[in-house]
Structures are given as C-alpha cells and as structure tokens.
C-alpha cells in the first residue's frame, strides 16, 4: 500500500510541483491550504507524513505542529516543516514543537523526496 502525504501550503506553484513530484514517486497526496483544513484532513485522510508550511493562514504551521504533538492519535505522523524563514531560531522552534525535520526554502525537490522516503522507511529497514 502506498504511503500518504498531506501537503499543507497555500502557494499553488510550490504545491503543484510537490504534488506532481510525490505522485511520480508513488505517494498518495492530498493538499490542505490552511491550518484548520490541515487538522481536518488528518482524520479524514490519515496521512503518514505532513509537509507543513509555517506560513499558512488561519492556524500557523507551528500551531498545527504543536497540536498534532499533543494529540495521541497523531503521534505517529511524521512532520516535515517547510519555511521561507531560515533563521536558526525558527528552525529550533519547529524542532522544539515536535517536527521531525525543518526544511528551508529554497530546497532541492529531489533531496526533499529522498528525505521523505527515508522518514517513511519502516523502522529498522
């Protein structure tokens, strides 16, 4: 069964590229365009990994991340935060709030896919 990735971002250009790339690599992809939408999709779509942009409307990526990490049923979902803010303090904040990875824009799409692949590999494999 293919792994599921939820993309949370409100920039259509990057969403289009990521969606295309992840589908090409065999993932099942869904898109949420704001924080509230993202939380709803967690239960509806049950993703294995969330690509979470920090600057999304309604609920920020940090808040979505923080809520996911306080909710036991979402503990297993991997979180990769994406941000155009690349300062170290923001990276630290993301990691402290429970992200598995914090990737700053611009990034190499091929490397991102490889990273996602690594995160979703079954433990010990």
């Amino acid at each position, binding site marked *: 069964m293919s792994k599921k990735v939820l993309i949370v971002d409100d920039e259509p250009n990057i969403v289009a590229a990521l969606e295309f790339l992840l589908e090409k690599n065999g993932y099942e992809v869904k898109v949420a365009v704001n924080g509230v939408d993202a939380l709803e999709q967690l239960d509806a779509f049950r993703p294995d990994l969330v690509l979470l942009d920090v600057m999304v409307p309604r609920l*920020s990526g*940090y*808040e979505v991340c*923080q*809520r996911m990490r*306080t909710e036991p049923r979402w503990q297993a979902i991997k979180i990769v935060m994406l941000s155009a803010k*690349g*300062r*170290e*303090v*923001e990276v*630290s*904040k993301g990691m*402290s*709030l429970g992200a598995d990875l914090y990737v700053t824009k*611009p*990034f*190499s799409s091929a490397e991102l896919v490889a990273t996602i692949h690594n995160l979703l590999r079954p433990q010990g494999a």
Partner: protein
Amino acid sequence: MKAGGKLALWVAILFAGGAAVPFATGLAVLAVLPAAEHDVVMRVLAERMPLVVFGAMALLALAAVVARWFFAAYVAPVATLAERTRAARSAQAAARVASEGGAELAQLAREIERMAADMRRLRADADARVRESRADLEEERNRLAALMSELVEGVLVCNDEGRVLLYNEQARALLSGEPGSSTVPPVGLGRSIFSLIDREQVVHAIEKLERSRQRGEAAPRTRFVAPTGSGRLVKFEAVPYRGARAELGGIVFTLGDVTGLLEREAQRLAVLQSIATQARAPVANIRAAAENLARYPEMESERQRQFVEIIASESLGLSRSIQGALQAYGEALKASLVLEDMRVLDLLRVAEGRIRAQAAVEVELEPADESLWLAVDSFTFVQALCFLAARLKEDYRVRQVRLRARRADRFVELDLGWRDGVVAHDALVHWEHEPLSVGAQESPLTLRDVLERHGGELWRQRQGPAGEREACFRFLLPAGEPVAAPAFPPAAIESRPEFYDFDLFAHGGTAQDLRARTLGELSYTVFDMETTGLAPSAGDEIISVGAVRIVNGRLLKSEIFEKLVDPRRPLNPDSAKVHGIDARMLEGQPAIEEVLPGFHKFCEDTVLVAHNAAFDMRFLELKQKSAGVRFEQPVLDTLLLSAVAQPGLQDHRLEAIAERLGVPVIGRHTAVGDALLTGEVFLRLLALLRERDIATLGQALDASRETFYARLRY
C-alpha cells in the same frame, strides 16, 4: 638717630626750655629798670655768680632726670611695644604683649594683646575653614576622579576655548591609542581638543548646542560619530555646561567606541546589496527561459531541454546565493544599534523586580551561568516578560513564575515557566499581537515586535514530570558577546587625580605674550635625553627621549613621553654603564627622525625645561631639520635657574640641587626618570625665584642669560 643721641637732644631741649623762662624774665626786667638800678642788679648777679651757675646746673640735672624718666617710661617702651606687637602679629601661638613703661602704655599693651588674641582666633577660624573646604574639595575631586576612571565610557571636558580640562583613561585610549605614538597627537590637560577631534565637528556641535539653548531646550545635547587618531570610530555625545554667567562654559563629551557596530551595519547593507544585485541576473535568465517555454509549447525537444536546463541551473545558483546572503545577514542582524550586550543574570534580576512590582506575580529565579550574555534591548524585553507574567495571572491564575536561562549553541534559551496553571496551547497566538501593556503602562510594541527586534523566537514548551501543569514559554535569543571590563592597570589609580585640572577653567587666552605670563600659569615640557656621548657634532646620537608635562604648577606624572631611539651607530660600552641601555634594547626602535615629530607634538604650546638645556638643545637643533620639525619654544634651564635662585652656591648638578631642595633622588639615568626629577626640582626653583621677584617668563629668561654670562666670565 640712636637712642642716646635722642636722649641728649631731649635733655638739651628741656634744659633750654627750663632756662629760657628765668633768663628771658631777667632780661625783660633789666630792660625796663633805670640805669642805676640796672647796674645794681648786674653787680648783685655778678657777686652771686656761683649761685646762678649752681641754679643752671640744678636745672640741667632736673632736665636730665625728667628726660630719662620720660624716655624710660614712654619712648623706649613704645619702640619695644611696637616690636612686640609685630611679633605677636606674625606669631602662630599666643605671644605676650606687655609694656614695662608707663601705666598708660601698659594699658595700651593690654589692649593690643587682647586685639592680637582676637586676630589669632579669627585667623585660626579662617584657616580651619580654608583647610576644611580644601579637604572637601580634594575629597570631591578624588571622588570624581575615581568615578571617571570607573566609567566604561570615555569622558572628556573642555572649556569654551577647546582646552582639555579633564579626561579619563578610556577617553585617552579612544582618542590616541598607544601612549607616545609619534603620529597621533596626545591627549593632555590644557591641550587643544582640535588636534584630537575634527575642528568642524566640534564647531558644529557647539552651534547646535547654542541653537538648542536659544530655543529654550532644558537639556540640549548633540552627538556625532568621527574617526580618531587611534583608528577607532567613536561616537561623541556632547553636553554643554554653563559658566558663572550662564554663558557657554565648555562641553562635556562622552565617548563610545562604535567601530564594530558600524562595521556590522555596513556589512548588513552589503548583504542586502548583494542579494539585490546577485538575484537580478539569474531571475532574468529564468524568466526569459520560462517565458519561451510557455509561449512556444511546440518548440523542438532539443531547444526545450536547453531552456529547462537553464532554469534548473539558474535556480540552483539563485538558491545558493540567497542562502549565503542570509547566513551573513544572521550575523549582521546583531548590529542593531538598539541592542546591547548584557549579562543574562543581570537581565533576569531586573525582570524579577519588575514582574513582582508591575504584574504582582511571585518570581523564582534559577541561578544562571555568569558567562551567559544576550544581545538585548533590555527595556522592551523586560516589558515583554512582564506582559507575559501579567497575562498568565489574569487569564490562567498563575501566581508564581520561574525564570531561568541556559546556553543553547549560539543562542540563549530563556524560560518563563509556571507550575500551577494549565495554559491553553494557543494562548501565545492571541497574546503575540497584543500591545505589551501591563496595568497602566502602555506600549505600542507587541510581543512579535520584540521578537523581531531581537531576531528571536518564542513558543510554549512542555517540561517536567508534572506534564501540562508544568510548562514554560521559551525564548530563543541570539547570544551576546561579553563586554570586557576595561582592563586598565591598577597603577593608574595612584595618578588618577592628574587626569583633570579645574584650575584651567580660569585660564585666559593663549595669545598673550609668553614673556609677560607668570611662571606659575605656563605649561612646561620637562625633558631629558640619553645619548651615545657628549659630542653631537662629532657624531654622537640620541638614544632615548623622556619628557613629562607641568600644567598649572602640577607635574603630570601620567602624561609622559618615553621613546628609545635607534642611534644607527655602535654604542660606547662605557656609556651603557651610565644609562643602562644596551644595543639589544635599541634594535628595531624607530630612528630619531620618526621620534622627533611625536615629541614635537607632545611639546606643543609649552615652554621647554631641561637640566643643562644647552646640551639637549644642541642635539635637537642638529636633528630637527631632518625630522621636519622646529623647536621654537622658549627654553628654561634648571642649572641656570638654580644659579639665579641660589647665587652663593657653586654646585648646580641636578643631584646637588635636588638634595638641597629636598627632592628625593630616585630613578636617575633614564630619560623619563631624569625628566621627572628635573620637573620636581624646577617646581621648587620656581618658589625660590618668586622670592627674588622673578615672576614672569621674561624675567626668568633674562636672569638666566645674565647668570650664564656671569658664569662664563667666572
């Protein structure tokens, strides 16, 4: 006239007076008597001649007795009394004024004695008051000097002529760097500030201050940034002080080093510049390629691949340059002029007090690492902490917060924690954009603004075993750099009070003819040189120059010029025994041509003083041309001045004079040691010269010349 002569005169006068009455009466009677009776009287008188002579003798004796008594009782005692009165006037302790003369004189003496006692009392009072106020003044000055030397900032005060009245070591270091440098003008009392700071800057500052005053501003101040001789970029803050009649008395400058800050500011601009320029070309290329691809979807696959290639490679380059620029920007961000480096522990202590007072929340302060520093705008940051504490109390009934900090790589984690409340996860989301108002204290800033200003982040962090009830708000802030406590040698403490001289306030203009100025008010450079030998014209060279300044009658031991000089010729081993300088010490030292310009600056506006000055001046004259300077100042010679002050003595060697005048002879035969000794001797000689009515420079120069010729003849 001698007392004996006076007495004889008085006896004669008394006798003449006493004799005149019967004699004149006799003559008058004889004149009116008829001739017959006249003869009878004459005959009777002739017969009684011995009686007449006896009468005259008796009269003379009486006159002598009266005169002697009068002299003993009233004349001589008056002179004695006058002498005793004089003695009583100049005596420190009670001196008895009495008279062995007549009763009236004795009474007068008692009155004088009473008056002398009154006068002594008054004088003692006045002395005590003077001593007291002098001690107060001295104490105040020392306190001021101590305060000044403790300050991290440089402080320099000048009068309205631009003469330096006061400075501290920090100001000196910022303005002229290494002491004794030959290229940088030295900082010194009484020296002109215009050689240290660009004249235009100072004039402009004075104008601005004057305008502020005219507008009626209560506390005018102005600031400017200027490069200084030490190669630093210094921020000057100028505040005027008023003279006795509210005119501009002078300016107090506060100096701070902003070299680093401005460098970082420039760096920041460069980063922005580079992002802007480096991004243009790749963006243009990507855009052109992308537009082609979009407009001509049917283009041949080879061309299509080429454009795609362009976009891929250009975006990669663009990514890299932005990444690089942002990394540099992260460093440059700390350049913000509102952030200052502060010890975290100090910041937390301030916050502790403010949170208690303003938010009425108890604070527990965990001990923080002493070596932890933050780049912080402490006022707004403490405000932010206060705000958070107040909101925690209002919305979640938190009664006690905990403050703690620890290092996290290049950052500092600062936690505001609590144990007794469940705080909603999104509490911060709402608070982040509210104004930081606590009670009545309003602020236009939000928590977000404060974080932006500090380049920091904030989130709610769970911690501890108590789970939800024990959590904290965590600030992540860029660490600051420790501000080094100024490392000045403790030896400076002793010489502290020399860094200021308020008597210079009273100084008049400098344009007066130097010759007419009194010796006490002039500034001097006392100097000495060690040489390879005694014959400058035969190729002997200077190997060290030492000098010290005298300003307002004070030897400024902290304003010293001291340089070793490479003589560019071998040293005579015998001379090394005198001055203790060997060839190795002179290796790599500057040549005299490099040293003299610095020495020339050091001597500016002063009278030169040296012992046996002719010797030193001869060396200077031979060297000044190649060094491109001229020593045109008047020169005083302590050897000649000593001969003027103590003409009866023959030995005017420096040690001999020093011993006679009670100056301890120490540290001889180094240039500075000798200059210091000469300076001490010179100051004592000035006192002796005053007693000989040599008060002005002109008089001292003339007297020196005379005694010089006198000695030649001798």
